[in-house]
């Protein structure tokens, strides 16, 4: 079996032209992840620029309202740029700089990873270009403008379904044509090795902090950790340091769109099959001939037809469970958390909140749930208003 495997998943299914680039990246990452100077620089940035550690907040009103397990929110939404994406973007941009790259490119769905990469590039003095499906540019116009403010060039992608998967394809195409000075800052735990393992390491700070904070606050580990899953970077970050703690239930929430029994869904593990795409073997939404399905979700960040290979492995082994959450449920949870706790979550994160609303009442009051609030919802306000039939300006 080739490198970068998670069970049978993962690998390096990319054109020959890119092989030396990913090998070079793997070598650099292997060196810098154990380099004290690199780690000190990254920690300094995470502390003083991103604002880590992010808070673990006891959602008392939500807990009382649901009447079951105690609910904590991991506040990744409070990070600089408003989501967990900055953890990875900053680390990869720093690595790219150490590798002597002067230019970074990235794909983005909801725009959160694009904004995070644009921010890191501005800070570290790297040229930055972001590829974003045209449809997503329209649903997330605010983030497009933020990226431009940060000095990044945004390329709308028209190929295929004009959403996240096409943005990933287009960024790979751009990378193949310009490798020497350019690093591809992939945004999720997907793609060819070493991206899934490297990005997981950069996001694992989330579960490392949850564990410490939980032990300080409650003197024990949580009973369940819930996170939304598109490619799966915030979820793997929230799960990783609990994988060996078998008593902690790990639950990933996939975007079911209009329902897993419809074609308008992005719930890969509920509806997909094994396949090979975007550099990895994993589960993908596809037809009987292996054509990738045009997936749908209200959330541009979860609107992806695959899932990272480590999640595929956790799914196979049963260590993590994956549940579908519909648009309707996510929008209700978006409004619920805003109303009850005064926290407007990203529509992506609202998928995790939605499942917690179902799960908490079934658990006793001495149990503990942690929800990873991966991002804040300002970017989604206009889209949710439209969903509710109100037209407000972005």
């Amino acid at each position, binding site marked *: *079996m*080739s*490198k970068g495997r998670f069970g049978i998943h993962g*690998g*390096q*299914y*990319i*054109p*020959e*032209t*890119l*092989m*030396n*680039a990913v090998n070079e990246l793997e070598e650099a990452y292997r060196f810098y992840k154990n380099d004290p100077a690199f780690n000190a620089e990254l920690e300094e940035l995470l502390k003083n620029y991103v604002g880590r550690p992010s808070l673990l907040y006891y959602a008392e009103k939500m807990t009382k309202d649901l009447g079951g397990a105690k609910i904590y929110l991991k506040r990744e939404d409070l990070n600089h740029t408003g989501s967990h994406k900055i953890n990875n973007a900053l680390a990869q941009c720093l690595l790219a700089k150490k590798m002597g790259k002067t230019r970074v490119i990235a794909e983005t769905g909801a725009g959160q990873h694009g904004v995070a990469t644009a921010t890191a590039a501005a800070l570290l003095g790297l040229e930055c270009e972001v590829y974003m499906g045209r449809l997503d540019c329209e649903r997330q116009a605010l983030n497009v403008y933020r990226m431009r403010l940060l000095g990044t060039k945004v390329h709308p992608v028209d*190929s*295929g379904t004009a959403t996240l*998967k*096409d943005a990933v*394809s287009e960024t*790979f*195409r751009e990378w*193949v*044509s*310009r*490798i020497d000075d350019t690093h591809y800052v992939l945004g999720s735990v997907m793609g060819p090795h070493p991206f899934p393992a490297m990005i997981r390491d950069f996001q694992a700070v989330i579960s490392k902090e949850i564990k410490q904070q939980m032990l300080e606050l409650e003197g024990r580990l949580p009973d369940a950790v819930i996170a939304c899953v598109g490619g799966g970077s915030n979820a793997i970050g929230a799960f990783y340091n609990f994988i060996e703690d078998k008593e902690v239930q790990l639950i990933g929430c996939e975007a079911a769109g209009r329902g897993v029994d419809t074609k308008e869904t992005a719930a890969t593990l509920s509806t997909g*099959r*094994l*396949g*090979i*795409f*975007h*550099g990895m*073997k994993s589960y*993908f939404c*596809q037809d*009987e*001939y*292996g*054509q*990738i399905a045009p997936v749908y979700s209200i959330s541009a960040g979860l609107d992806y037809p695959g899932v990272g290979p480590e999640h595929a492995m956790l799914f196979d082994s049963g260590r993590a469970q994956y549940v579908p959450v519909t648009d309707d449920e996510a929008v209700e949870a978006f409004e619920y958390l805003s109303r009850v706790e005064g926290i407007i979550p990203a529509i992506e994160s609202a998928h995790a909140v939605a499942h917690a609303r179902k799960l908490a009442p079934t658990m006793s009051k001495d149990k503990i749930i942690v929800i990873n609030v991966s991002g804040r919802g300002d970017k989604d306000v206009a889209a949710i208003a439209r969903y509710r039939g109100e037209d407000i300006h972005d």
Partner: protein
Amino acid sequence: MIKIADAFAKGKAFIPFITCGDPDLETTEKLIPAMAAAGADLIELGIPFSDPTAEGPVIQDANLRALSGGVTTDKIFDMVRRVRPQLSIPLVFMTYANVIYSYGADRFLKTAAEIGISGIIVPDVPFEEKQEFEPICQKYGIAQISMIAPTSHDRIRAIAEQANGFLYCVSSLGVTGTRTSITTDIGGMVKLVKEVQDIPCAVGFGISTPEQAESMCRQADGAIVGSAIVKLIAKYGRDCVKPVTEYVASMKEGCRKAETVCL
């Protein structure tokens, strides 16, 4: 079975690529023997994929046109089954890993061998992942064709050692599509390959004129052309057989010129 080596036995090879089902399978079925008659030495048949990440816009569009016309892997197998007996040149499939994997690699390659396909080219399966399909290819006598790129450097030896059929030399960085000039040292790449194994080397990506074909054939054993042909198909639709045939003949002539000694 007709062997890939046959394509390179009579001099410099011209290798056209078309996407099956673009604009429809009836046209593909006419194009294949017409291109063979016009001098094609081997034909690459693309099985369309929804997300062809190694292709430029021209072949991406061809993939979409074919898929929206309802083409499937099974329909392409049936078309090849009908057209194969009319031909004396080898045919290879060019497609993406998921098309083969999701069909069931064994079932796919077994059927491909039965209908007379000599090889497969899968751009998203590099040397490191070769074992995904290689054992099954061997079982059915199909060559999995390896690629080398301008970025391959010290990988060339290892790839060449295990190469089957012919070696696909990617002329330039980037995705498929026509280019005005090719600056890579193709001759140097080919020389490295031949030090390891005496296997035919054909150059692809960016070639569109007879002059480029001639120049590539002076440095290698053949020229592969995709986007320039697919552009003609896009322009002429069902009436593309004549212009494509004429184009293939002119490109083959370019390849032939490379056979004359350059003083």
